[in-house]
């Protein structure tokens, strides 16, 4: 699938992975609209992309958790900057599994920010792209959503829900000529993971960003980054539950 230079909306644009995806897209000549909550940071990322790549970049305030605003947000963004050729959804929240077990507020927030909010904005975007009959959507899910593990099942279930939502959405939108790619990164060296020890195959965001844009250009449906995670997760998914439940993964 060749990347057309049309505008791309990046939701959660301050995320380190989003930044590198945006950079890789801008390097291919895409103009960008950055959406997020942290305006001063969005401004910095905007000027950075403009200067490095010579593309035009705008930014918008967007709160993923404010679901009632999503419809109007998208409509306005389309009027001001659209029609969007593509949407990158990168916002997310890892949270703290231990805290989530003790405090429902935390657990709820993890489910909300990774799944419900994502489904909410995708609901709006999908309708619009389906009617238009073109476009692409890239969503950051996670390998954590491939199997529930005791060490992060709250986050994992939210990402797992998102992954399944995307499977259905892909099939639906495929009929309308809209492509949906699910990205499942392993651990990436960002603010989300900084300071955690023993992270296997830690990837740097630059590599992940380039891989995502390359995967998109190839029309991939599901992208594991780095690639070994495809095999690792296949093996992990194959372990019988009777055995798996005894592990402390």
């Amino acid at each position, binding site marked *: 699938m060749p990347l057309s230079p049309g505008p791309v909306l990046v939701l959660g644009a301050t995320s380190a992975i989003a930044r590198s995806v945006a950079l890789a897209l801008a390097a291919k000549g895409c103009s960008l609209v950055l959406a997020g909550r942290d305006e001063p940071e969005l401004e910095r990322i905007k000027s950075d992309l403009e200067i490095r790549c010579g593309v035009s970049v705008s930014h918008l305030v967007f709160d993923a958790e404010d679901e009632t605003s999503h419809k109007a947000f998208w409509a306005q963004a389309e009027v001001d900057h659209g029609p969007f050729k593509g949407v990158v959804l990168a916002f997310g929240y890892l949270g703290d599994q231990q805290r989530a077990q003790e405090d429902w507020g935390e657990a709820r927030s993890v489910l909300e920010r990774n799944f419900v909010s994502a489904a909410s904005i995708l609901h709006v975007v999908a309708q619009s792209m389906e009617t238009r009959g073109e476009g692409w959507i890239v969503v950051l899910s996670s390998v954590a959503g491939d199997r529930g593990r005791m060490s992060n099942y709250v986050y994992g279930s939210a990402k797992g829900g998102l992954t399944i939502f995307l499977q259905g959405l892909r099939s639906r939108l495929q009929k309308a000529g809209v492509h949906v790619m699910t990205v499942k990164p392993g651990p990436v060296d960002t*603010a989300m993971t900084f300071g955690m020890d023993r992270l296997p195959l830690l990837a740097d965001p630059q590599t992940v960003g380039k891989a995502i844009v390359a995967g998109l250009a190839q029309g991939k449906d599901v992208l594991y980054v780095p690639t070994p995670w495809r095999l690792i997760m296949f093996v992990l998914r194959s372990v019988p539950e009777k055995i798996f439940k005894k592990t402390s993964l």
Partner: protein
Amino acid sequence: MLPEKQAVKDLAALGGWGRYPLADTRAVRPERARGLTPVGEHCLARGLGRAYGDAALLSGGTLVLTERLNRFLAFDPESGVVRAEAGVTLKDLLEALVPRGWFVPVTPGTKNCTLGGCLAADVHGKNHHREGTFSNHVPEFEIVLADGSRQTARRGDDLFWATAGGMGLTGLASELTLQMTPVETAFMRVRHTRSKDLDRTIELLTDPGHDARYTVAWIDCLAGGRNLGRGIFMAGEHALRSEVSLRVANPLSVPFRRQKPFPMDLPGWALNPTTIKAFNLVYDWAKGRRTEFVCDYDQFFYPLDGIQGWNRMYGKRGFLQYQYVLPTATAREGTRLVLERLSQAKKASFLAVLKRFGPQGEGWLSFPTEGLTLALDIPFSDGLLTFLDELDDIVLSHGGRLYMAKDARMKPAVLRSGYPRLGDFCEFKKSIDPEGRFDSDMARRLGLCH
């Protein structure tokens, strides 16, 4: 918004580029501009860790890693003035701006270093004799002080001249403005001239007839006797469009080269005088062959950057850099003595680079002063530290000083006698950082403001 709570990472056995000494520290790594703020009782900015020794180390304290604060903030294509966060690297600048006809005004021998690191060490390049140090091209910068406040420092401010060369001890530089240099191409017109001995090498470096915008001499440290100080003098200019082959479609772009990673730690014995001698011969022959040619800027400025992690070829024990500058009047004599000691002791250096410095800048602890500077890499071995103390005696008795960004071992007295403005620096530091919050292993070792 409030600065978010920052995750802290433990870093065990962290080193500088020479991998000696190593320190156990912690680090934070802000990803947002407001996250750049002093943390804990003692902290220090760290860029890409290209200083060789302990300048960017702080045992038991917290390093503030600036690598993610690397956004370009403004660029004026007319004037070539760029504003960027301190974690932007020279590589970033070159990749973004050379295609638009602007080159970095001063560059060290690696492009993998940050603007903050270049300011803090007030780095010099092959054009120092004409264009001075890095800070000479910085109209202003912003810095976060010990109390967390942000201040703009302009040329003429004490804060400016204490920070340029101040090795991170005044605060965390957050944003810099830099005047870039106009170029017509990404290529260099280079001339190599062989030199048979030290007198000739110095003559080539100082004679206006041989001068160029960028000059440097590479010296064969193993040659003694009549050949002492022999080497190759290299002079470069940014190539004009008319000097680059017409086959090059876009003269402002450099072909992408994949970095070859250095595969492993070499055992320490791999770099004995014989292997270095063999290397020198090959290098010598290869470089001496073509005397005038055009090459791209990577080949001219950053030959070592092509081998990722080349510092590992020195093995687990690491290596030391040694760089001094001697005033013009004593440089010849002092350098002769140093080279004699080196060739006798067979503590061969892989790379020895001789270069002329122009007039001294205004940075209080900025290294370059008018004269000649020699830089050496020496693999770590027993007896090396004593040997270098002897070289220090030569340098001091000839009125010279050592470069902190390369140092891992000098004694406090060596620093004191080389840097007369140390007192002003410490007095000023006390006024802006009374608790000594910004600190480094180097400052502790050298008793710098301690």
